[in-house]
């Protein structure tokens, strides 16, 4: 009966988005997303994509070019933009004008990320920077610089309510969880529940281990493909993970159990199918940075004591 009352839903909604939160968790998310984005950005040669011969750009429509302001023949300009983005991301990591740095880097990544694939497809999904764009922009509208920041502007005052530290974290978690949810949803809608069948998983394993262009690891994939029970476990386990990770938004237990398991799940995909899900480090947005910081502090405090003990021993 309690569930039917509108007041219960309003309270639950408030609790979800605005429960008192920690500035450390938000700062941890800022550092995680900025570090990750810098890693992916500097691992790509995006400016050179603008410098490709014009024939590669000949099939890119005007709408795609104007949507991201991506045009061929400007590699030097793109190089400058990459450096500005990298500096802004460094600013976000160390906390120099953190909100402004997040905003600039998010905006510039919106322009730079599609360069990777624009010659044939106008959206850069699964290439590592899609979540970064919306995450950095979200962080720029939040008090993400209230902790672990070197330089905060004077006008950037701490929020009156600690609930302001929670909604950005919830949004970032939602961005990540929806990837898994819609991945499962697409499988069920396009293929049906039989996607999880042993024969389908066997086909995927064989396809990914037989293709010489992507065949880096093959032992685990062929081992799974040869065992119907293992294929069933992979299929059902995948759907359970993809639909189940939503619970990590609401349950501490699910965060503790499912999030580390998802990281292991991606390691399994990498070793069996040669597919990389770059966003795995972003799962740190589920970490409790207060607990981690306390643990780290206790470690640092105990270190000199142990050194003293060792010195006395000798």
């Amino acid at each position: 009966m309690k569930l039917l009352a509108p007041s219960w839903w309003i309270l639950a909604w408030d609790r979800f988005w605005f429960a008192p939160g920690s500035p450390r968790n938000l700062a941890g998310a800022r550092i995680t997303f900025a570090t990750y984005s810098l890693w992916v950005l500097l691992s790509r040669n995006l400016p050179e994509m603008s410098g490709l011969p014009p024939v590669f750009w000949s099939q890119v429509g005007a709408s795609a070019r104007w949507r991201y302001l991506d045009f061929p023949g400007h590699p030097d300009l793109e190089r400058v933009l990459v450096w500005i983005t990298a500096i802004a991301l460094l600013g976000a990591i160390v906390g120099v004008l953190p909100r402004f740095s997040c905003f600039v880097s998010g905006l510039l990544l919106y322009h730079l990320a599609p360069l990777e694939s624009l010659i044939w497809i106008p959206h850069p999904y699964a290439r590592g920077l899609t979540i970064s764009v919306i995450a950095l922009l979200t962080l720029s509208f939040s008090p993400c610089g209230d902790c672990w920041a070197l330089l905060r502007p004077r006008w950037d005052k701490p929020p009156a309510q600690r609930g302001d530290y929670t909604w950005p974290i919830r949004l970032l978690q939602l961005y990540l969880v929806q990837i898994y949810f819609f991945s499962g949803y697409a499988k069920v809608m396009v293929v049906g529940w039989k996607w999880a069948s042993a024969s389908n998983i066997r086909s995927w394993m064989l396809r990914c281990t037989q293709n010489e262009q992507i065949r880096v690891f093959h032992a685990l994939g062929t081992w799974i493909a040869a065992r119907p029970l293992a294929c069933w476990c992979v299929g059902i386990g995948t759907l359970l993970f993809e639909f189940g990770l939503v619970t990590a938004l609401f349950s501490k237990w699910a965060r503790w159990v499912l999030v580390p398991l998802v990281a292991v799940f991606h390691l399994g995909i990498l070793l069996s199918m040669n597919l990389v899900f770059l966003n795995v480090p972003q799962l740190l947005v589920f970490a409790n940075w207060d607990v981690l910081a306390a643990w780290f502090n206790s470690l640092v405090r105990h270190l000199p004591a142990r050194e003293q003990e060792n010195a006395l021993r000798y």
Partner: protein
Amino acid sequence: MGVDISGKESDIDYRAWRPLALEELLSWIKLHFARLDPAARDRVGAYLLGRSNLAREQALSLAGLPYPNRWFGPLTAPTHMLHPAIWSNPESVPHNSFVELRVYEETWNLEERSHDPQKVTRVLVFDYRK
């Protein structure tokens, strides 16, 4: 595949196509290449042949084929699909320049190939000669 003056075909390392990731290049070829006129196709062929020969020379040099980011080295973020670095060992790098580039489309039956890895059908999609 790169083809040298003697007609010998060799696989090309995925890093040769930088800044293009291999999956982006293959997808572009699959979707758009057939729509190009012969002159445009030749421009693509000349560019890719140039890239593959440059990469071959780099792979034969002491420094080897560089990572996209020299500071990150092997910690450079990979693309969504992994690719084998077949030119990491100088002995596996062709010593003669490529004078021709061939793009094949490969198809196979998963079950047949699981018994015999050579059971692949190859169709020549594009052939560019310098």
